[in-house]
């Protein structure tokens, strides 16, 4: 079953010098598939994610998620932002339950789910903390717990670990692997980190810049559940060499 269908999608930012951000992108994501969009900065990978999220609208082409054309942002497509984008005046619990609350759900409908998501992201001891009192990694955990509580069918992640230090990034990648292993939602994950793409994704789309195009599509032949150990493995290194070659090209 396909979940996301992108066909001949282009995005141009008008102006004195128009920016051709995306050029005729074709992309299909299956339900439950973990897809990584990999490329250098300026290749349009974040633009593509913003289009799927509904934050921006395409200049040309069509975009369907779950059979519906994308018109605006909505809770069925949860987004994890690079800088977490938590509401700074709400504590962790209030941030996590913001979605169900604005949807008018009674507390009984979301409380258990929110508690579970806070539990699996390791935030149970921090529910009363404000975002400013948390480290970057902890804030990103809240960003993840928040979209998991939304029960989005599709998770869109825009370099969520890009601003974290190497140690924290590994921890967060492990966390995401284990969460995804149990929930198996569709994920589109934007990154410029080759290791991260191989470690997490089933399928990697390598993008090239100016204009943003999909250069190639690779399947990651590593079985799940995965762990950080495989970073040093044979298959991993072979795939990494191949991608490096593609990106230098």
């Amino acid at each position: 079953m396909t979940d996301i269908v992108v066909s001949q999608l282009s995005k141009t930012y008008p102006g004195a010098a128009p920016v051709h951000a995306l050029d005729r992108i074709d992309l299909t994501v299956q339900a439950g598939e973990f897809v990584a969009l990999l490329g250098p900065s300026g290749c349009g990978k974040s633009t593509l994610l913003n289009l799927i999220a509904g934050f921006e609208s395409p200049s040309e082409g069509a975009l369907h998620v779950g059979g519906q054309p994308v018109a605006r942002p909505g809770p069925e497509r949860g987004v994890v932002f690079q800088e977490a984008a938590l509401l700074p005046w709400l504590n962790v619990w209030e941030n996590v339950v913001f979605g169900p609350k604005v949807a008018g759900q009674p507390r009984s409908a979301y409380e258990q789910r929110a508690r579970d998501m806070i539990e699996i992201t390791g935030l149970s001891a921090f529910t009363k903390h404000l975002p400013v009192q948390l480290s970057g990694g902890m804030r990103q955990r809240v960003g993840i717990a928040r979209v998991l509580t939304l029960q989005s069918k599709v998770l869109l992640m825009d370099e969520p670990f890009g601003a974290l230090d190497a140690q924290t990034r590994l921890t967060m990648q492990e966390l995401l692997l284990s969460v995804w292993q149990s929930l198996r939602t569709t994920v589109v994950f934007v990154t410029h980190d080759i290791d991260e793409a191989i470690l997490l994704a089933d399928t990697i789309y390598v993008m090239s810049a100016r204009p943003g195009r999909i250069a190639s599509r690779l399947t990651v032949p590593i079985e799940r559940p995965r762990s950080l150990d495989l970073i040093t493995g044979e298959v991993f290194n072979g795939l990494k060499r191949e991608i490096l070659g593609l990106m230098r090209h």
Partner: protein
Amino acid sequence: MNTNSQAQAAPARAAPAGGSGAARTARRAGLGLVVPALILIAWQIAGQAPGMAGIVPTPVRVAQAWYDWIFASPGMGLNPYLGTWLSNVQYSAMRVGQGFLLAMLLGIPLGLAIGWSRLASEMLDPMVQGLRPIPITAWLPFSIALFGIRDMGSIFLIFLGGFYAIVVNTTQGARDVDRNLVRAATMMGASSGQLLRRVVLPAAMPSIFTGLRIGLGIAWTAVIVSEMVAVKSGLGYVLWDAYYVGRMDIVLADMVSIGLMGFVSDRLIVWIERRVLVWRMLQNH
């Protein structure tokens, strides 16, 4: 930097206190009082000089007049400056309160609308910006013509004075809302009304408080100016009236009272701000 060096210097000089927090605070407060005290003493000496008699009252005379104005029993009604301080303060404070409340009730929603909606911005912002350069004092004759010599003439001017500061700062706050916060909230399903109330308003709150503080300062200016002309009570009325009958001691006591009221009301807003914007206070540390 300045406070730092003072804090470091404190333990060395105030030897027995050993640099405890209270001693440091007292020392800092004490330093701030040195120059004003010297000025008061110089003024007292100069004012007692034979040639100066009757021109400017000495600090001691002002303090006496102020004391009587506050605490003396109103008496036979011949001297209007006995025991009438509190009621005049109340008149002025009431007018500031009413005018300022009106300014908040109109200014905050209007500022949010202008800052958030392009339509509202295009429709209303040119009018606000066009009227704003007219000084509030220039509105005085029109205000009296419209409302007569009664409270509303004064309240209107106070409203106007607070209104612009609140609108302009609220507008800026609503315009500066982090785009990612708006995106995150719409992604979680917030409607445009929820966005305004749950994201734009709280995000604009620091700017709104800046507007409130500036606006309240202008409101105190407005109440004094308007009371001099448009009503027959309050600190502004007493200020002008005392000048006319040559009571410079009361004029000066009145000036200090106005300053005190402005200071206290500003501290009140800061006190509220500290409680409402805990997240912001933590961010700045």
